[in-house]
């Protein structure tokens, strides 16, 4: 049996993590190919429903990442984002979404190696957790009368 390869969606900000991931590439650091990166202007733009969209569409795990505190290009976008994640993570946990499947991190434009490490550890963790069948079943479960 081939090993399970998790699908990971990464929501990252343009100014730090995206640039950081770029650096990972230009520094020729190899890392897990499981991640699909989506670039946002700022972590402050990452609406919580976007994370649910990823799960809806079959993601097994998610990475959300942006500039370290005090480094936000727009000065406070990441502080706002942090509050939102703090609240949202509690809600997810309370509703039974597996919060272990979401990695939140700060990765700067200079931290190419750190980005590789975050992706690799997240991938490793998700390989162990397996596919997110719970959510996929929820999405698939139809309605009794559907033809």
């Amino acid at each position: 049996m081939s090993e399970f390869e998790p699908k990971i969606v990464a929501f990252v900000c343009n100014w730090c993590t995206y640039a950081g991931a770029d650096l990972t590439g230009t520094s020729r650091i190899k890392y897990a190919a499981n991640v699909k990166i989506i670039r946002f202007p700022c972590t402050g733009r990452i609406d919580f429903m976007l994370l649910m969209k990823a799960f809806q569409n079959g993601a097994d795990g998610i990475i959300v990442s942006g500039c370290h505190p005090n480094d936000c290009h727009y000065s406070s976008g990441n502080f706002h984002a942090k509050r939102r994640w703090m609240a949202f993570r509690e809600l997810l946990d309370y509703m039974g979404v597996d919060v272990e499947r979401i990695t939140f991190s700060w990765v700067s434009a200079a931290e190419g190696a750190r980005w590789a490490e975050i992706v690799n550890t997240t991938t490793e963790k998700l390989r162990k957790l397996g596919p997110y069948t719970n959510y996929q079943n929820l999405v698939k479960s139809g309605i009794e009368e559907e033809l």
Partner: protein
Amino acid sequence: MELERKLIKKASLEKLYQKLQANGNKIFAPIIKDGKTEFHYNPSYAEVTYDHIQTIQSLKNTVFPKIENLVRFTTDRNGTEVTEVDLAKVPSLVLWGAHPCDAAGFKALKSIFMWDYKDEYFNSRMNKMVVIGLSCYKCDDNCFCTSVGLNPGATNGSDILLTKLSTGDYLAEIITEKGKEIVNAAAELFEAAPAEAKEGNLAQVKQQFSHEKVTKNLAGAFEHPFWVENSLRCIGCGACAFVCPACACFDIQDETKGKTGKRLRCWDSCGFGLFTIHTSGHNPREVQSQRWRQRIMHKFSYMPERNESLGCIGCGRCSRACPVDMNILEQLIALEKIQ
């Protein structure tokens, strides 16, 4: 067809149920779960109850599901490919234990869905359904079937109507050909009609207003201050419409995922502000009183006029479900008297 009367013993009811189930019918019957009586698909007979007054939800889901998938589609560079749903796949359904008001509710829905445009989704489901009704021996103060031309033993809408007799056995009135087929296929379970009349075994529901009078009054009441005065507390939710067996409003929406999608018909309500809003932002029913007026007008004025059916069967569900005590019976009684 002429109405036929037979007797079915309490013990035979179970056999009939099992026979219908064994013949591949889906059954929709009332059971008690978490202290509430609601209809569920294919419960085991032991769970089925005959003692409820009314369920919270209506039974319209059987023919007008809360979500009907109308078509599936795929879009790509070459255009859109549409796949029709296969209406032949509609399962045969036995509605077991529907009260007379609910059975009549299907007639009200039919007057809408089979009016000028014939809706095949509705029709296919309707054709595949048999209604085994159950007369009411009790009611509550929200019930008003007798005020809208029905009664706790009305046969209108049922294929077979069961009434519990003093012996604990059931009188079976066979009303339609569909009902007769069922009886013929299980002839051994039915016996000769009892002498006991059903009338003594029915709930007493007092007639509280004349619906003809209400309809007449509504014709000139569009601008009446009644609407504003009596709907200030209405919060414009969809609870009344969603539990109503005769409300038929829907909204059609596409739900897509990548290149594929479904066109869905979902329940809607005239009580929602969004129901009538135009793209321009203009809303012809700007405020809640106009929406409440629409609800009553549609049921008691427009439908009798155009569809030759009332849009209300007096089940009282909307009054029970309303979070702010908008009681339709109270309002209809008042409307009978307005000038």
